[in-house]
């Protein structure tokens, strides 16, 4: 390590926040851009599976709550793109990379939402897993990222409660059909939620470096365990069965034993073969391309206005 790098690591070790204008290793910057960018992309792609049920929400109140939630997600996208911009990459550059398939978003959004209980499951399990990942990141070393995560976590935990509330209603006050929907959602979302923490990273050098930089705070396995331990009693309260015959309390470790997700499925989805990868990308690319005239129109108007103001100033001089 160079003296600069040493000093940088010392600051991180002391718990100082790194701010945009300050020196940072190129790897730190790149890793952060990738991580924050992916997170931002996940927020905007994440509008799609939930947006899929807005027009079909079963009550006006549920519709309003879901709209507010999807709006929040777009807002999170905005914070995160702003945080990434402090690292010298523009939102449009990041979007271009997304649209070209050169940047990823969270694979969970490549799964379809097939019934209303899925909207509950996305809130409870998907946001739940996301929060588990994000809460520690409130303490991440990069200032703007840390501050964005603080805002986001506050809203996400609200979303998680709303998701759980959907399932509470369906499971505790619902008809048999509704309970079946909830169980179906559980069956489909359990393993994809576990996959959200990523494969075991104990041997990954990459992860080790990120942890040293406090871009990553916990290992994937730690977070996955924590998620399972938190979620199992919640599922029990709903009367839902977790689709894992090996799930069992392990007194010794003070947590549940559980089955690993099918990692071949995880890699297939990453590779573009999830149930909805093509649809999600097509939706985003179409939105972007069809909206080009709109963005250009606004830009042209802004330029004209600036010209007019300049001309008016000249005339006044």
């Amino acid at each position, binding site marked *: 390590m160079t003296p600069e790098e040493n000093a940088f690591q010392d600051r991180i070790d002391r718990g100082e926040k790194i701010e945009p204008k300050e020196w940072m290793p190129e790897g730190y910057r790149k890793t952060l851009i990738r991580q924050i960018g992916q997170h931002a992309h996940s927020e*905007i792609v994440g509008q799609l599976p939930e947006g899929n049920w807005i027009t079909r929400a079963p009550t*006006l109140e549920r519709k309003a709550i879901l709209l507010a939630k999807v709006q929040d997600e777009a807002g999170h996208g905005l914070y995160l793109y702003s945080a990434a911009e402090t690292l010298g990459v523009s939102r449009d550059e990041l979007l271009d990379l997304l649209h070209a398939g050169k940047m990823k978003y969270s694979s969970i959004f490549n799964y379809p939402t097939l019934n209303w209980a899925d909207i509950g499951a996305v809130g409870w399990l998907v946001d739940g897993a996301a929060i588990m990942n994000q809460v520690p990141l409130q303490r991440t070393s990069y200032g703007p990222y840390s501050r964005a995560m603080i805002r986001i976590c506050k809203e996400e935990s609200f979303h998680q409660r709303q998701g759980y509330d959907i399932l509470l209603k369906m499971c505790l006050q619902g008809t048999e059909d509704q309970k079946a929907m909830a169980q179906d959602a559980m069956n489909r979302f359990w393993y994809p939620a576990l996959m959200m923490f990523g494969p075991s990273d104990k041997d990954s050098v990459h992860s080790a470096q990120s942890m040293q930089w406090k871009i990553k705070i916990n290992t994937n396995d730690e977070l996955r365990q924590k998620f399972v331990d938190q979620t199992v009693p919640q599922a029990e309260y709903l009367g839902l069965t977790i689709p894992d015959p090996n799930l069992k309390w392990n007194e010794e470790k003070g947590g549940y034993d559980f089955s690993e997700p099918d990692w071949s499925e995880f890699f297939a989805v990453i590779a573009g073969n999830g149930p909805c990868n093509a649809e999600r990308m097509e939706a985003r690319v179409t939105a972007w391309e069809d909206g080009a*005239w709109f963005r250009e129109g606004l830009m042209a108007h802004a330029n004209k206005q600036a010209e007019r103001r300049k001309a008016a100033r000249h005339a006044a001089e």
Partner: protein
Amino acid sequence: MGAAVAAVDRAAFVEWLERVGDNALVLGHRVSEWCGHSPVLEEDIALANQALDLIGQCQLWLGLAGEVEGQGRSADNLAYLRDAAAFRNVLLVERPNGDFGQTLMRQFLFDAFHIELMRALKASSDPRVAEIAAKAEKEVAYHLERSADLVISLGDGTEESRNRMQKALNVLYPYTGEMFHDDATDKAVAEAGIAPLPSSLRAAWDATVREVLEAATLTHPGETYQHGINGAGGGKRGVHSEYLGYILAEMQFLQRAYPGAVW
């Protein structure tokens, strides 16, 4: 029931409330179709917010409609269990989203009417109506500010954006007359002081539209044919376009497929 209700035909009051509520519901639905598909992230946020406002207003208006009707129907019952012929929204709000320009133009033409209606309703003889209007007015004022700004920017933007906005205007303008067309229901609630006559809002709307179109360098379509005010047609009288049936099939699926379930 308040004094206003005693003085007005209850059916007319309910029908009028359904018109106001259904406008918000159907437009909210259309706007919500954009979620995650708009041209830029800021618009995703703005449209979700707008849909949210409209659904919230719909809950209040249809809630009051059910209350005045007095047959135990909730806002959800009205939204989810009426078929198309019982809907009372104007044709304008059920027009397809089209390109983003059509969505914006539809919004602007409606917002400019909606704000005048909400302002006038603050003086309603029915305090419940006045209260909802006061709450909605703030939201609608913001919607109008946005949609007018965008219409101006895009009209006075590139040649393409101008052409798209002009086309949107030409396509949608024939659906604006219905908003200002007075019928027996409108007259009944106006006489009871509950609401202004729709025609009384026209001049202010017209001024706003002309001002914005001018700033947008768009050409006013002039006096065109107006849908929904001749013969027996028109959304306010329950004669809709073929689009509404599809909107409702989607919107109402869960309530129809699982009758009586709570969500």
